[in-house]
């Protein structure tokens, strides 16, 4: 038994050693968990950060904010968490996994995504309630869905969706494939689709502006690099890259 315990301990130690300086040789890894909608802008920021910090490898995991929050709370080794909404950041703060107060770095608002050429001629939010228009939205449990519900409340328009998707990328995919006539997505999603879908902006979208908070994760393996990454996001480069894909940035 003693032998066994010793062996287990040895295995654990090796594993821990491997974990702490993966990719050894003085190289450091900064791990960022970011909402899926940040894929394009944070991808550009990753390159800028690596160019400015020799020997630092930035790894970004993109996923739905709720899944990322859950992983962080389950002990995932991340340095930075950028959420697409406040409630999911709140979960991380409540679990004591955020280092300091999260700060909002960007805002996003809904727009109507339509296939190129807008075959059903959707012009306003109210058009989404017309019969014969196949609309796809996010489920109310996810940020894009709760934003959509807010707009419905503010306008009194009841959208009868043919499907409630689990994330905004799935909504986008169904509009892009042409199987939905319209879908509610974020402005940034249409910009990053690069012409494969068109957007129809509507003024009522201002009823549901989404805040994107960011925070350093508690006990981050690389707290200093994490803070420098936040500086980059809030700096001129960050504003430029976020603005490029349609995010609003805090002035």
């Amino acid at each position, binding site marked *: 038994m003693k032998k066994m315990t010793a062996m287990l301990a040895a295995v654990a130690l090796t594993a821990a050693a491997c974990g702490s300086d993966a990719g050894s040789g003085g190289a450091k890894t900064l791990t960022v968990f970011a909402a899926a909608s940040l894929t394009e802008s944070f991808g550009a920021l990753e390159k800028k950060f690596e160019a400015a910090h020799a020997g630092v490898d930035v790894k970004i995991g993109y996923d*739905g904010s*709720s899944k990322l929050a*859950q992983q962080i709370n389950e002990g995932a080794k991340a340095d930075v968490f950028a959420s697409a909404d406040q409630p999911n950041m709140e979960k991380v703060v409540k679990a004591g996994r955020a280092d300091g107060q999260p700060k909002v770095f960007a805002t996003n608002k809904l727009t109507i995504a339509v296939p190129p050429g807008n075959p059903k001629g959707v012009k306003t939010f109210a058009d989404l309630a017309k019969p014969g228009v*196949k609309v*796809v939205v996010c*489920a109310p*449990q*996810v940020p894009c869905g709760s934003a959509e519900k807010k707009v419905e409340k503010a306008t009194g328009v009841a959208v009868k*969706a*043919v*499907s*409630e*998707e*689990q994330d905004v990328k*799935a909504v986008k*995919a*169904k509009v892009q*494939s*042409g*199987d939905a006539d319209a879908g509610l997505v974020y402005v940034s999603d249409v910009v990053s689709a690069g012409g494969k879908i068109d957007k129809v902006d509507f003024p009522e979208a201002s009823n549901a502006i989404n805040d994107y908070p960011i925070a350093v994760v508690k006990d981050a393996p690389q707290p200093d690099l994490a803070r420098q990454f936040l500086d980059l996001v809030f700096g001129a480069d960050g504003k430029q890259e976020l603005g490029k894909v349609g995010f609003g940035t805090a002035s």
Partner: protein
Amino acid sequence: MPWVLWIPAAVALALVVLPVAGLLTRSDLSRFPELVTSSSSLRALRLSLETAALSTVACVVLGVPLAVVLARSRVRGTRVLRAVVLLPLVLPPVVGGLALLYLLGRKGFLGYVLDAVMGVQVPFTTAAVVIAQTFVAMPFLVVSLEGALRGAGDRYERVASTLGAPPWTVFRRVTVPLLLPALGSGVVLSFARALGEFGATITFAGSLEGETRTLPLEVYNQAEADIDSAVALALLLIVVAVVVIAVARPRSLEGVRA
């Protein structure tokens, strides 16, 4: 049996059982009844049972002839077909769903024809759920039947033929009875696979309560907001699966010839 086999066998069993035990330790059983009897859970459960039953029927109606053809046909190229049938096992379900969407969606070549000729649109309907489940579940049925047929060999069928039985009679009176034991396990396997189907369904059929949101999709949906509720629903899915396997487990699943 050499006793050493117990060691890997125990590891294998632990791999299956321990995660479920993990699920149990994290679930709040006092809230279980309330969580699983909400109207959305019950609708998802009902939809799951209905669609999985329908797709199992589709698997049998289409899969049995396919297995017989694969096992008995001497046409060249059957070996390639055998590999093709396994594709849904290898494809990630989401890719399978995309493939179905690109075939039967509005812009897919078959979907376009269906829409133009009959005014039928498949995506976002319960029919799409059944098609997605049949797509992923069928290989389980075909593989178990084909294996059984090839294992049994074709001497009984040949004898029946030489005694003057026409092909249809041979199929009915000899081939099908030979298949029955394997059919039991094939049906259970494909029903179980259909019940747990997630990726192809959400990609091809979407997710809407009462229409296309089956129990696995409801679990995923709940996991976004309320993980306790998702765990409770996942347990419900496990209970349903275990009950189905236990009730339907014919002697055939244990390899006993009827």
